[in-house]
Each structure stands twice: as structure tokens, then as C-alpha cells.
């Protein structure tokens, strides 16, 4: 595939239980790819049994990877490009 395109870096925030951490990403990352690359593997917990959820289909069709992005719930992180200052929360 050729060398990694180390282009512009983007910084966004991963928030869990009220605490936020800075995450570095490339401008071509999606929220999901950046989180996985940074080691944040669990994106949410299921409604009924509080089971951990992460990426499943990676192309916006299964809704497994949804998180709260900039206050908006149910955002499919696998097809959402990252942006500087973006706020990504594990839904409560």
C-alpha cells in the first residue's frame, strides 16, 4: 500500500465517565480508526446487559460503533472523519 501518509495531525477528545483524554489522529482517520489506533477499543456498552461494543462492519451499516460525537448521539464513528477539537463520548 505504500508508506503511511504522515500528513496533518488532528487532536480530538475521548471522554469516558466525565473524564476526557487527548487523542492524536491523522486528518484522514475516522473517529473509530483513530480510537483503535490509540488503544481505546471499547466504544460503548449495550443498553440492556451493559455488554462492551466496538467496531463490527467498519462501513456504517451495523451501528455497533456508535458514540456521542459533539453532543449528538448515535453517530457511526466508523464513517465519521475526525476534526480538531471534536468531543467523542462513551454514552452513559
Amino acid at each position, binding site marked *: 500500500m505504500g508508506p503511511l501518509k504522515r500528513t496533518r495531525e488532528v487532536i480530538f477528545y475521548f471522554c469516558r465517565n466525565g473524564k476526557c483524554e487527548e487523542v492524536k489522529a491523522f486528518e484522514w482517520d475516522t473517529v473509530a480508526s483513530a480510537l483503535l489506533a490509540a488503544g481505546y477499543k471499547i466504544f460503548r456498552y449495550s443498553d440492556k446487559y451493559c455488554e462492551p461494543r466496538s467496531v*463490527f*462492519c*467498519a462501513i456504517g451499516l451495523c451501528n455497533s460503533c456508535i458514540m456521542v460525537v459533539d453532543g449528538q448521539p448515535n453517530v457511526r464513528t466508523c464513517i465519521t472523519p475526525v476534526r480538531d477539537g471534536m468531543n467523542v463520548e462513551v454514552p452513559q
Partner: protein
Amino acid sequence: MEIEYDVVVVGSGPAGLSATAEVLRRGFRRVLVVDENPLPGGQLFKQIHKFFGSREHYAGMRGFRIGERLLNEVEKLGGTISLRTSVIGTSYEGEIKTLWLSNPERGVSKVRVRKLIVATGAKENVIAFPGWTLPGVMGAGAVQTLVNIYRVLPGRRVLMAGSGNVGLIVSYQLLQAGAELVAIVEILPRIGGWAVHAAKILRMGVPIMLSTTIREVRGREWVEKAVVWRVGRDGKPVAGSEVEFDVDLVCLAVGLSPNVELTRMLGCEHLHLRALGGWTPLHDEKMETSLKGVYVCGDVAGVEEASVAIEEGKLAGIGASCELLSREELNTLVEESWRRLDELRSGPFGEPRKEAKKLILKEFKQRVRGRGIGG
């Protein structure tokens, strides 16, 4: 505010891009391509292996390079692609179709069009077993997207379920990315994909366990262990045949199903054909569905291959341009396209799909033309 277009293409994968290039070439000007993904090209850009087929179908080229070519062609012809745009609703008044589009920046907009080409592709199937919802269990296509496009390896010790071409190819690509494949499990007593794809990974020492399926997957918050077991001739699992693996990624490569939500919404007629991946819309030789002015192409019209998607896209583009062509030109182009499609579907692997497509055309004639509806 409503905008009117000559042609709207839904999906910018190989079929959609090919169809777009064709309608632009034939002379349509107001052409809109929409895709709900942030990048165009569908699944083509994550295909890093060299393609088979004939020179006309880009054989020998790596998938993503074919994608680049198609994209350049569309751009050169003046086409633009509206990304992150989903079709959220449709209605139909005589020949005019109205589409409601949603985009995160522009919000909801309405579009009117006479010719609609649906190229929405297919989605991965799932098999359920205890632990299947655990993070770390992903579709094989998902892993391919993450590794080849986003350069993220979601795990280092992988179990692959399914030995069809997708399972075999993704396994090879995982090896190239530095992962270890503990095994490929296949429920049938023989591999599902081509021998050459299996040979590439067998020579790397990856075991392919036939007549074997996943029993369960365990882990606290992410996959940690996978247990597989043998399946007897009667299809029942054999107790005592369990083998446990330490893994941190389980890939499911168990088939694809056409994304028919849009064609269902529009009210097109469908047929269920195993050889094509399940429910798929009926169409005629010009790829027109039971709804006049609605065309389909690519995996949504039957899960096949990228080369078929490219050819069907071209055919749908020709079909949609029918009024811009003479009857003679149209018939010649359609005939040539089916000749190429027949060649792509030849051999023992293509035969079931060739037969399935014949059934679709036959069923279309009976159900649609027979009732005097449609083209």
C-alpha cells in the same frame, strides 16, 4: 428547495463509478452521485491484491489502482460525488422520482430525477455463537477496511471463519500486515474459494481446518479465546473435538448480502437467489428494474466480483442513456456487454451465478413484462 437532475447514482463503488462515467460519456449533464461514506470507491480501495480476468477488466492490476482509474475517469468527465450523503426517503410520481438526501453539513435536501441508478453494494453476513457480540469479533471486510485504508491492525493473533475468497484473501493481507493467523475454519469439507488463494496462505503455514466451525468466543471486554469444533457429516458438531486458541481477533467471512433497502423502499420486485447472496432486485437486459427509470448494478444486483460490477455499471449507464442512443447502437452495446459478462461468469465458479442471472431475466419477463408494466 428541489433540484432536478438527469441521472442520480446512489453509491460510488466500482459499479456506481462505472455507470456514472458511462452516462456522462453519453451526454447527460446534470448527473449527481451520492455516497454515504466519507470516501468514494466502495470496497475497491481496500483491495490490495492483483485482479484476475481479462485485460478489458483491468486484470493484473491491484484493486485500489483500478479504483483510482475509475475515479479519475469520472472526474475528467466532469462528474462530482457528494460524500457523506445518505438517501433517507423516496417517493414516486409517474416517471419522476423524488429523493430525500441527508448530509451532516447541508442537512436534508430534496432531489427530483427521471433516471436513478442504484449501486449500493452488499453487506457482510454474520454467524451467531456465544460471544459473537464481544469486541474483537468483526467482519472480514471490516478488518480489510481498517488495515488497508486506515492502517490499523485490530489484533495480532487472528482466527478466520470462512474459506471463501474473502476469507482467504483477507487472511493473506493480515499476514502481510504482520499478524499471525492461528487458523481458518471452514464448515464445509472443502474450501469455498479458489485453490490459488488457499495455496498462498497454506505455504505460509496457516492451517485450514475443514468441517470445523466456531463453538464460542470468550473474553472480558475483548476477544481472548476462541473455541472451535468439528462438524460431522450430518452437520452436527462433534462433542470432544474442541480446540481452543488464544486470539485477539476473530474475523467472520461468511458471505455477503445485497443492500436492497433502497430498492425495497421504491417498491421494486425482488427474487431470492442463494447463488447471488439472497434477495436481489429483478432486472432486464438493460439492468432496469420493475420500476421504469430505476436501474441496478454491482453487488446489489447479485454478489459477484468487482469486474462484474464494473461491467454491469457500464451496462446500467447504457440502459439509462437509452433515449440518447439509436435502437441499433443500444442493442449492439447491450449485446457486447452481455458477451463480456458471460465470459466473466464462465467456469465452474461463475456457472451458478450465470444461471441465476438467467433466472432473473426470465422472472422479469414473466412478472413484469407479462403484466404489461415496465420497459
